[in-house]
């Protein structure tokens, strides 16, 4: 298939796999992930970088993919919600969200879990204040955030205890 005028071949690593796609350089990374790579976990809530529904990790940093022109993602290492755990299992973070009722309609959840992942990667022992700060760029219209905070703190404690038992064993 020949490239339309202006489209470029752009490669980056997504969830551990090198992917190459054809896109206009100003296409939003969010749209390329959803439409071309079938990674529909990231959602569009506002298109302005205010709600965090589109959050992904780009080179280890939490970013709003609705604000990233895909050319700037060339060569980057991207992790989406689909990449947090193998397809048939849930990570401890995801399980904690289930156990604590951290999701209702679920539309904010992929972005919130990515923000939580980013927080826990940087700060494995967050306080409730730290969790609120770390998730301050993510809006939820359903839960009132209490169960979300609980889920993240629970996940932190589960990750910490399996980390210490791993080092013991």
């Amino acid at each position: 298939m020949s490239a339309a005028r202006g489209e470029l071949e752009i490669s980056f690593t997504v969830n551990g796999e090198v992917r190459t796609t054809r896109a206009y350089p100003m296409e939003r990374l969010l749209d390329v992930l959803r439409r071309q790579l079938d990674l529909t976990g990231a959602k569009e809530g506002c298109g302005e970088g205010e709600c965090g529904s589109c959050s992904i990790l780009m080179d280890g940093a939490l970013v709003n993919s609705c604000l990233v022109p895909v050319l700037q993602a060339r060569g980057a290492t991207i992790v989406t919600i689909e990449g947090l755990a193998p397809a048939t299992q849930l990570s401890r973070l995801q399980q904690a969200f289930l156990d604590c009722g951290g999701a209702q309609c679920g539309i904010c959840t992929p972005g919130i879990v990515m923000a939580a992942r980013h927080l826990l990667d940087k700060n494995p022992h967050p306080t409730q204040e730290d969790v609120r700060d770390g998730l301050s760029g993510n809006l939820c219209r359903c839960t009132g955030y209490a169960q979300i905070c609980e889920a993240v703190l629970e996940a932190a404690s589960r990750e910490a205890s399996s980390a210490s038992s791993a080092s013991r064993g």
Partner: protein
Amino acid sequence: MRSDPADYEFVAPASLGAVVSLLAERPGEWLPIAGGTDVMVQYAAGKLAARKLVSLWNLRELRRVDVSDTEVVIGAGCTYTDLREHQIVRREFPLLASAASWTGGIANQNRGTLGGNIVNASPAADSLPSLLVYEAELILVSARGERRVEYVDFHTGYKKTLLASDELIRAVCLSRRYEDYVSYSRKVGARNAQAISKVCVAALGRTVDGLVADVRIAAGSVAPVPARLRETERAVSGKAIDAALLQQARSTAMREIHPIDDIRSTSAYRSAVAGNLVVEFLQSLQTAGHRA
């Protein structure tokens, strides 16, 4: 109406030199975009006038911090997260580090850059008052070479700057002389994150023998540009901090600024709060003086 990506040209040269050459070939034709947290919002809303963009994201020459004995040179491509995490910025320029922590949320801080914030030139920008009180200098670069300008001269009017059409900010220079100063900053907005300020104030000062010395006060969202409150500074310089001085400082600050009514706040609210923040700063200066 959404923008159609097919209508845009967007290039990402590998070096600052290549970007600067492109801007020189066709001044005014290519819009620089760094982290995109302002440009992409305009683009998404179909309000971006430019059709050709050139990327500054992650250019090594811009995303760096150089420290000498006398100054810290912050590359214009440093993100707010870079500023928050840099040990010397945190220790010696806490007003800038705290402003960075108040801008947007984590995801925006990982992409928004100091240079982008300055050139976007919103009078509400959180970091800009801190650059005023630190008396920052900017290094501007073009194919014609580099020039150094005082940041206080950079904003010439609402969203207008000194930047020539072929020019970029390369770096922001901060003098390493503020470690002994009392610093104060506060942003007042609808919430702690993801909120554009209704008013923000950054201030630095010292007291010598109980008298106010070398005080600098700057505010955002109270004028068409980020503003140094020089009349207020003059009103308090060399004086002892007592109830009468606090009242005088409050009324001078309220007279000096020109806030407007807009979707976020009103002129009256902004004036009252700016006055309160100036008083709060002077009170913290007074407390620090008593402890010394």
